[in-house]
């Protein structure tokens, strides 16, 4: 009773017309926070519950690089790491400082590129990853869903069945294998492989030549992701659209004599809604695919950075990449969740 009045006041104040909209936003916000919390906690546990000692790694790393360190310097360095990880403090304090560090962007130095802060390395790579990921995800979602709807509306045609066969071969194949296959294809069969990712030697600018260069180098790894993802969206959309086709409002459109184009529009609009929700939740999985694709194609994003971190035993960098990957994916999903009401009038104008 009291809560209702309070919520009503808040809504009036924010000029929100729909209770459902408010509920939706709050629910997705809490999911976002929960996901970030679970993810960062998992990262923390992983980083502490290990049989390795990060300070030892750092020192041996530096020694391996051939730097000659005096015993006092080694001690000082180990002390720095100890403070960074707070390994001398109780666990909950470590946890809090870890969270604080992640949220403020202070993750400490990279082990391999000591003393460059890891955050700088991540910042350079993350925009490339966002570019590849955004580009491929949007394209494959659109392609897969549009073709899926058409295949459902024209479900008896041969093309529809042929496409389904192709999708059923592409869909189960893991991103890593698809990436390698595309890589092999463009290295051995059609040597189009000029060099991938980033922009070669060009300096960042808004010129057409720069943009063209970026896009050309982006296209092959993007193709690898798009092939796998489109197949997945195609299959799920076709099944979804087939069931939407059976709904009353679709047969009413047919009865009214509205023709294939309008019916397709009806089916598509209605089926896209669950596909957006699906996209929001699948972002983690797609991100995994982007990571491994970047590695295979040596594309200068987080994937390649992660591989470098592994080969360089750069433990701190790994943790940084992990933390920001989780937060990035959760944030992207949250943004998508906010877009959803714009398309579903039942939430936007719900009672």
């Amino acid at each position, binding site marked *: 009773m009291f809560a209702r009045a309070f919520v009503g006041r808040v809504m009036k104040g924010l000029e929100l017309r729909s209770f459902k909209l408010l509920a939706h936003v709050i629910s997705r916000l*809490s*999911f976002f926070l*929960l*996901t970030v919390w*679970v*993810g960062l906690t*998992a*990262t923390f546990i*992983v*980083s502490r519950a*290990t*049989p*390795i000692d990060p300070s030892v790694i750092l020192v041996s790393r530096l020694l391996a690089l051939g730097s000659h360190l005096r015993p006092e310097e080694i001690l000082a360095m180990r002390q720095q790491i100890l403070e960074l990880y707070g390994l001398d403090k109780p666990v909950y304090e470590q946890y809090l400082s870890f969270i604080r560090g992640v949220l403020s962007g202070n993750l400490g130095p990279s082990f391999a590129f000591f003393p460059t802060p890891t955050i700088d390395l991540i910042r350079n790579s993350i925009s490339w990853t966002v570019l590849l990921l955004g580009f491929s995800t949007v394209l494959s979602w659109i392609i897969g869903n549009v073709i899926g709807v058409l295949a459902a509306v024209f479900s008896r045609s041969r093309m529809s069945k042929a496409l389904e066969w192709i999708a*059923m*071969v592409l*869909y*189960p*194949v*893991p*991103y*890593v*294998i698809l990436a*390698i*296959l595309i*890589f*092999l294809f463009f*290295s*051995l069969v059609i040597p189009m492989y000029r060099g991938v990712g980033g922009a070669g030697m060009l300096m960042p600018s808004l010129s057409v030549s720069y943009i063209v260069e970026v896009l050309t180098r982006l296209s092959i790894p993007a193709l690898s992701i798009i092939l796998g993802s489109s197949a997945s969206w195609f299959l799920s959309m076709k099944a979804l659209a087939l069931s939407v086709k059976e709904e009353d409002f679709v047969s009413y459109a047919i009865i009214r004599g509205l023709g294939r184009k309008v019916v397709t529009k009806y089916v598509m609009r209605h089926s896209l809604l669950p596909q957006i929700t699906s996209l*929001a*939740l699948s*972002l*983690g*999985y797609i*991100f*995994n695919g982007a*990571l*491994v694709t970047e*590695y*295979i194609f040596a594309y200068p994003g987080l994937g390649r950075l*992660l*591989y470098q971190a*592994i*080969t360089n035993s750069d*433990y701190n960098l*790994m*943790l940084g*990449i*992990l933390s920001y*990957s*989780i937060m990035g*994916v*959760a944030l992207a*999903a949250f943004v998508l969740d906010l877009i959803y009401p714009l398309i579903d009038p039942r939430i936007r104008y719900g009672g």
Partner: protein
Amino acid sequence: MKTSNPFKAIIGVLIVLLTFAFILPYFAPYDPRRWATVPRDQPPSGTYRFGTTTVGQDLFWLSSYALRNSITLGVLTAFVSISIAFLLGAIAGFTRSSILRHTLTLFIDSFCLIPGLPVLIVLAYSWRKYLSPVLIALILSIFGWAWPSRSVRSLMLSLRERPFTYTALLSGFGMIRMFFYEYLPYIIKWLAVSFLGLLNWAIGMETTIAVFGLSSLEEATMGSIIFWAMQYQAVLRGIWWWIVIPILILMLLIITLYELSKIAGELIGAR
């Protein structure tokens, strides 16, 4: 049991692969993992059916051995994941407490959203020294359970809401008896489809981690073969069989398992 042609073909391929993986290794004339047992870089021929690697391994026997490891690892992962998924999903679906249901659902969904690969990589890196197929399987299971758990939950929710559940409860059926007689067919179907799906996911995930260099050091898996091939620049040097053959085998296995799961889904149809 359907005896149509596609079904027969799929079972056939599966039998060939399983034989290759589990029976053949016993006939290997040498330990395929050891380096320098055969001449290096030989293309596929009569003597070395799949060719040889740059470090002197017979790819044919090595693949057979690695496939066994990959499949076993996958099965173990699928088994552990499905158990966790079933437990959490069933609670989330069946519980009357809406707080528990909502929290558990959010928790499951968060594990679906969190990108598992970086976590698994960091974990595998930390435990590099101790990595064995069993440990890898356990590590993979940390994320494998999430998506299947969602589908268990919705399965349980739908079963719980069915009219016969209420009537059965009202007419005094014990929960356990009801569980077995009414729900079992749906659950078995779900288990079959999910298990195969998980198996595919696990094999793919293991390959991915191996390609990053984080697989078991002593045991060979399909993924680690690919990793070493990449390390030795196999493609650039023209030793294409070292990468292509394991990939073809993996694709064959994965597509076959997927087709099988589709058939399982249709066969064990709902009443």
